[in-house]
């Protein structure tokens, strides 16, 4: 049986939003419902004595460590340039999701896409193209382990932001030219925390995989320079 991918995706999205937010709707209605009911009950119970204006038995709600807002996850979008070896450089856009394990280590997943250009040979000879339009779609993802070197950035004496320089090492795959290749990536970046939950990042990352698109098998280096904005939640 074949499903339309968009229909499946959109149904999943609607369901997930409904599920994740159900407690908000539920809470709203139950609070209203219970307050109305308790008001009604107290009116019934207190028919022979004057109703109490203030209920002294307020339950103090116990708050624990687990109720505190945790900001260990960092989600972001990025854009920039990627130099695709033999195929010019192109614009690249992507999304990232990171989990901060502790103050120094983090785990980051990235997914990005670009469209490769033409090789010099294709341009100069004017001959048949190496790749079809579809095969020029360049997509990659990777999972990296990163290390933060924490610090502060002083723009002036009074304008100070927390920041860090980080290094990443990861593995993933690149889909390009009709093949999917195991890809090692390594890079470094700078993260400027404008607030506790909003950051700007500049990132340089090399992606290395072995490719035989232009005939001989060789290791290609595709360096991406990107600017990201990320949010902690």
């Amino acid at each position, binding site marked *: 049986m074949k499903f339309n991918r968009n229909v499946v995706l959109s149904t999943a999205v609607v369901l*997930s939003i409904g599920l994740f*937010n159900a407690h908000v709707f539920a809470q709203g209605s139950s609070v209203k419902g219970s307050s109305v009911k308790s008001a009604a009950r107290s009116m019934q119970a207190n028919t022979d004595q004057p109703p109490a204006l203030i209920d002294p038995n307020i339950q103090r709600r116990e*708050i624990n460590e687990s109720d*505190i807002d945790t900001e260990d996850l960092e989600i972001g979008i990025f854009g920039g340039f990627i130099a695709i070896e033999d195929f010019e450089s192109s614009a690249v856009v992507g999304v990232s999701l990171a989990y901060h394990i502790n103050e120094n280590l983090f785990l980051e997943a990235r997914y990005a896409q670009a469209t490769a250009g033409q090789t010099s040979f294709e341009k100069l000879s004017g001959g048949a193209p190496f790749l079809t339009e579809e095969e020029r779609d360049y997509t990659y993802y990777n999972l990296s382990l990163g290390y933060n070197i924490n610090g502060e950035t002083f723009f002036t004496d009074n304008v100070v932001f*927390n920041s860090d320089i980080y290094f990443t090492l990861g593995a993933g*795959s690149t889909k390009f030219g009709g093949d999917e290749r195991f890809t090692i990536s390594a890079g470094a970046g700078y993260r400027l925390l404008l607030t506790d939950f909003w950051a700007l990042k500049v990132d340089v990352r090399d992606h290395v995989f072995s490719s035989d698109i232009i005939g001989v098998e060789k290791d290609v280096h595709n360096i991406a320079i990107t600017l990201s904005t990320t949010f902690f939640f």
Partner: protein
Amino acid sequence: MKLNPHFLFVVIMASAFYSIAAKADDLIVSIVEPYVDFRTGPASEYPIFHVAEQGETITIFKKKTGWYKAITYTGQEGWISAEQLGKTIKPSGELLYVPTGSFEDYTNRTFEFSAFGGILESVTAMSVAAAWNVTGNLVAEATYTQALGDFSENKLWSIRIQHHIFPEWKVSPYLTIGAGGINTRPRSNLVQSGDEVRKSDFYEVGAGIRYYFARNMVIKFEYRNIIALTDRDDQEQIEEFKLGFSVFF
């Protein structure tokens, strides 16, 4: 450049998740130790700029890894460590429990996320896994592995059960059993028609060892033996060795 529908899917899912993360409460605690250090950032490298004294009440409103953002009644805002917060008391007078990613927290974990690098029949493979700790001994896990070789691209997923024989040991062996599916696609330069994907189901058994390494982190080494139920006369046997690490919640 056309945008991939998966890309949009990720963005929308993330925004849906954001709404569950948005619920938060402020926690009020009193300091019983002589003092608590307030730092300018959520890491031990950041300087201490303020000290809250014994008897003071502080409000905790945010957490980032092992650091908590607190505000004093005079309005000083800074980050304090989990260790120091763990020595404060709640309004009820009880000591506040603060998880520090200790081995004890690990044995009480609910979810675990792992990433591995390894070798699947002489091809470099990478895997990710999400696990749910059902009891201390039994863990349900979903895994996804990708092995991109010179001749074919292999993608495997599986659902499996891990049995931790001695979960209370820091170095602890475990056994796994599960079932899944494998997709194999030959390289486009080897097969002209391109998309000849072979799909088979498989069963897997395996064994591994895990080591509680440091705060919030566990190292794992694993072997699994896969029996793929192919359409051909012979069944295919695949072996995988992998080394990785896990974080837990």
